[in-house]
């Protein structure tokens, strides 16, 4: 590779083209990625999630998962988090796909996927839309539900099976 030869000129042409066409967007993107890298190094996956998706709902979903994993009253296989309807073709904060990815290994289901009643059904406002009126996370015992005495719900007709308890989880 000689400096005065033709290869030098061709490489120079390509470098100049790179400088004009590729360099600005690459530098801009590198800056963003470097910042993100610095902010997520050494963090747990949940912490990285919050950094990369700063919406407060993500933090709340992580809290919900940790709450469900750490409670001792129900086994994970007896819990069903109800997935919301998908409102867009792109994943959103409360999309079923994001919900299940964050809450894993707590199962996320929709409609009648699992046979038999669940011991605990977890719902969010996105899961049930207008049927949700709680201002805070709240447990409803099965006895309360049967007499329509569960203050976080207006209508329970959508619930897939009877004799379960309901956790209403409020997302910010």
């Amino acid at each position, binding site marked *: 590779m000689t400096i005065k030869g033709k290869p030098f000129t061709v490489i120079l042409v390509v470098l100049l083209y790179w400088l004009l066409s590729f360099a600005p967007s690459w530098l801009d993107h590198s800056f963003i*990625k470097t910042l993100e890298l610095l902010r997520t190094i050494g963090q747990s996956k949940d912490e990285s999630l919050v950094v990369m998706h700063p919406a407060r709902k993500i933090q709340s979903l992580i809290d919900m998962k940790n709450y469900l994993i750490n409670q001792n009253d129900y086994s994970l296989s007896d819990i069903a988090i109800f997935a919301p309807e998908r409102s867009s073709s792109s994943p959103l904060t409360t999309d079923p796909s994001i919900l299940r990815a964050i809450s894993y290994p707590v199962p996320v289901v929709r409609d009648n996927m699992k046979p038999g009643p669940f011991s605990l059904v977890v719902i969010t406002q996105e899961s049930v839309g207008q049927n949700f009126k709680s201002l805070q996370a709240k447990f409803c015992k099965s006895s309360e539900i049967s007499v329509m005495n569960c203050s976080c719900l207006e209508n329970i007709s959508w619930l897939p099976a009877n004799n379960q308890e309901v956790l209403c989880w409020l997302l910010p």
Partner: protein
Amino acid sequence: MLVAALVTFIWLLGIVGFGFLINQKMFRFNLPRSFVLAYPTGLLVIGISAWSLWLANVPFHLIYSGFYIVVLASLFWLSKQNHFSIRTRLMWFEQLKKLVTKAEMGYLEIIMLLIIFPAIGLIVLWLLLTYPVVWDSLALYDFRAKAIADGWQLADFGQQFLGHARFAGYDFSHPFGASIWQAFLHKSGWERSGIVYIAWLISLVLYARIIWSKTGVWLIFLMMLFATKPLQVVWTQVYTSLPNTLVWLTLFLFIIDTQKQGLIKPLRPASSIINLTYKLFLIVGIIFTRVSEPFWLIMFLWVLFFDIYYLSAYKFSKYKLLAVAFFSLAIPLIWFNQWQSIQLEAVIINPSTTSTTSLSSYDWSKYAGISTIFNHSEWWLQAMTVWLVKNPASSYLGLITLLLFYSRRCVTSSLVKWLFLGLLMMGTLYFALVFEISREIADWANKGRLLERASLPIVAWSVVMITELVAVVPELTSRHKKLEE
């Protein structure tokens, strides 16, 4: 954490050993090529085999244990061979040192190195240290990987959102290839699963060095690979685009490599057949990782016609060669059939399901409305505007045009002529036709995001072609001048 790191490291090293063995024994590559292509070959063979076993309902913990034993055995076997004796290892080290330091460095090469080192460093650190938490990598590819590692079978994915019309096809929207690879890492206890692609990137860096021995040319390849935004986005997102682009790049490099070897000395017929097999193997790898864009079909036909035409000079039976090629294609087709049937069974054959999957480009009925576009002149205007402005491939194609112009003559290699036109036309037609034309005519602007991913095979081809042009244009121009004199 340390145990997981160690288990993962041995696994990744074992893939190199396993791939090296296959390259030596099956594909009969020479020693340097066997080594630099070891990881891609090993990973693809393990991935495709594991996928087949998983589709056949073999529990994943058995698949994982089985392949772990295989890669450990490969390492053990290799350690007994001459390749890894202390003397040979020293020789390898010397060769590697020579490969890196033999360069005559001018100002431009030093400038390029100063750009390339941080660019590569950022990408390697990103894959090494971050979790896949960007949307689809989190919600789809890595989720599937974790679930597979925990024992989910294909039907489990189908059952989860039964009756959820807008969501049912999500898990099936891309082949499970990337997820299978990442599942091996999750099973090893390593959650930063993007790490699986680092060694492949390094393989490409080394393979390019073998193909283009001039340092400046090689550095141009690295610049295009690591210091441009479209590919940097791909390397840091850990979507299926990442492994898919890696396979495309390997295939294009392999084609250039075999062409260059053929120029030096005619290939022996036996090695030509092995090369054809390796190309078909890589095409299966493309299908294995991402299938939404039917570019692989062009590549398949291209390899089929040109290689068989070339091999026919050696009086091989064309029918036998065609049989080999179609048999290679039959394997992925059988997979797809099974994959689709389980998917459709799982969502109770909901007609909207196929449109939610990325397989919609294979729904031939969508191409029936092709005549509609001829009635809309504004459609062509918008389409070409998006192609030229929003398409990340356009900058690369612009550089190719510039280099061709610079060479003062058209480089008429078959690769340029057919792939350029074929990919371009396929890409435009794909985006024009797979969506409902009437709805999408005014929506070209929104197609930019999808166009980025669909254009990646063109970007990969462009990166290889730009480098090859940088290598051959000076020779062409000097030959042209001599002829003029």
